[in-house]
């Protein structure tokens, strides 16, 4: 394979082009890691859905996300049970409450009450069989290990506190549920009902269902939604996405992320285009000879834009491992960064586009290419 001229030019001038490559790489890393942090943060909001086995979630009409449900009648269970594809149905409680720390002071918390028996659809799979057994004791709860501080606890297991004036006792710790608004408190349906006295005995916040075959889910969801417009009927996947999107748009963390990303891109754009502009301006006589010989202008333009392509490629190739490494590192210090393939691909696409745009911007220096100037 012959090396393209543009690559040879880049390699020969690598000292000159290095800052541009680093700038491109820097903006790519920044975009990937920031978006990764955002995804990681948002993922916690839908984790109770993602880590439960329920395939269909039923709630009040127009609920934008999981924490904005309302009590619904237990009687709606029959509507589900009447569907031939539906195998199992159960209730689910999800409600905010006040947590009174043992040493004084209070904190918002979010109570998740679910059935705990083996086939439970609402309990997150992070609850081990031992935890589930212990959770059947009245007042037993499980919290996230990283929330202990916020809850005013020291070691967790064995410690007591109060929720809505009722005594609760920590019987286990889970990981990866550090919520953005208030610590999750996992408990049995019975404990949840005792704590959340505003719920009537025939009320739930959600009703969950599982089908005999997961292929049936879309049809059941559609049929129920059509027949009962007063309910929200969502597949677990849709509910999860909807919840994350709600947090993305409501909290505006997306806006902050967007702005810093744009800033990083502008820095990359300016440095790259200026570098290319200067490099091209330094070669005006060389290009002018090619023009005198009648070689078409677009060839020279392509040569410049191809250089921006290689700068982009160099920057991106350095940024992907760097972003993955940072993601690992963040994992060690307890922050969650998600770097799915599609995010990396989007980052690469955006960064490459920016690199190419800077190549196009650098083309303005080619207006100075004038064969007549060679006559001096």
């Amino acid at each position, binding site marked *: 394979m012959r090396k393209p001229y543009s690559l040879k030019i880049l390699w*020969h001038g690598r000292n000159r082009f290095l800052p541009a490559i680093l700038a491109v790489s820097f903006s790519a890393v920044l975009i990937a890691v920031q978006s990764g942090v955002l995804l990681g943060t948002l993922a916690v909001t839908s984790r109770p859905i993602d880590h439960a086995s329920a395939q269909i979630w039923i709630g009040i009409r127009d609920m934008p996300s999981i924490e904005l449900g309302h009590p619904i009648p237990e009687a709606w269970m029959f509507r589900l049970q009447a569907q031939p594809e539906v195998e199992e149905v159960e209730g689910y409680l999800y409600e905010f409450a006040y947590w009174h720390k043992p040493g004084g002071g209070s904190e918002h918390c979010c109570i998740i009450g679910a059935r705990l028996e083996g086939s439970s659809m609402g309990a997150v799979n992070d609850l081990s069989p031992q935890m589930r057994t212990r959770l059947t004791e009245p007042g037993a709860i499980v919290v996230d290990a990283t929330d202990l501080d916020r809850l005013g606890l020291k070691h967790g297991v064995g410690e007591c506190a109060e929720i809505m004036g009722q005594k609760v006792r920590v019987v286990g710790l889970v990981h990866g549920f550090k919520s953005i608004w208030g610590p999750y408190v996992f408990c049995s349906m019975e404990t949840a009902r005792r704590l959340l006295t505003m719920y009537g005995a025939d009320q739930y916040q959600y009703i969950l269902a599982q089908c005999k075959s997961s292929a049936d889910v879309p049809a059941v969801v559609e049929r129920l939604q059509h027949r009962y417009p007063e309910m929200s009927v969502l597949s677990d996947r849709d509910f999860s996405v909807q919840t994350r999107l709600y947090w993305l748009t409501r909290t505006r963390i997306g806006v902050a992320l967007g702005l810093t990303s744009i800033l990083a891109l502008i820095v990359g754009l300016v440095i790259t285009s200026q570098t290319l502009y200067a490099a091209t301006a330094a070669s005006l006589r060389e290009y002018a000879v090619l023009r005198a010989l*009648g070689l078409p202008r677009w060839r020279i333009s392509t040569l410049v834009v191809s250089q921006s392509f290689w700068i982009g490629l160099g920057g991106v190739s350095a940024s992907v491992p760097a972003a993955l490494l940072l993601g690992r590192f963040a994992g060690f210090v307890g922050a969650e960064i998600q770097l799915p393939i599609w995010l990396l691909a989007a980052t690469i696409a955006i960064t490459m586009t920016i690199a190419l745009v800077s190549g196009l911007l650098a083309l303005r220096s080619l207006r100075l290419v004038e*064969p007549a100037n060679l006559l001096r």
Partner: protein
Amino acid sequence: MIDANVTLEGCNLTRSFGDGDTRSVVVHDVSLEFCSGEMSLLLGPSGSGKTTLLGMLSGLLQPDEGQVVVLGQDLWRMSERERELFRLHHCGFIFQGANLMPALTARDHLEMVLRWGERLPWSEVNRRVTDMLGLLGLSRKGHLLPEHLSGGEKQRVAIGRALIKQPRLFFADEPTSALDWEHGKHVVELLRETAHGGATVVMVTHDPRILNYADRIYRLEDGRLLGADAPTESAVLGAP
């Protein structure tokens, strides 16, 4: 002089620079002609307008007045695009410096012209580039970057780049001024061979040693043509 046909003709060429008080006429009503198979020289003191005249004859610098007829076409009646294509198909250039790209090898420079100008397939490009490097005496230096070539070798690459597309017209502006005579002679001989192979070669020079190689000589002074000389006499006349 073999088969001398007039291929390039300048009629009443005039060119000035500047406006108003600063306006100066650099080439004044010059008419001259060049034939295929000949190497012609434009001689004259510094500032006499040789380069300006060459620019007008070669389609790089628009004359204020006058006409250039080349291969039967009026060069300055063509559109910009047509002139560019004309240069691509028929004109070779070398300038004072070699103007090579520092990142590209000698071979790259020759290849580029064929690939970009004529879109030839690689096999054909390779064959012609290898032949040309041989002709230039650079067979073993094709892989070198300009920084590793001597001044004469660089100028030969520049000539090769202009010759490889086999132009019918060849314009050279003091191609030897930066070279010692050993290398300069090689360059001049190459150009003369090109001319005697059927091309029309127009060279601007200061170097009296080149006179002996010329088939036709024009002398300029203050932008006016002094007249055309036969080569041998001029060499005698030009000698100190």
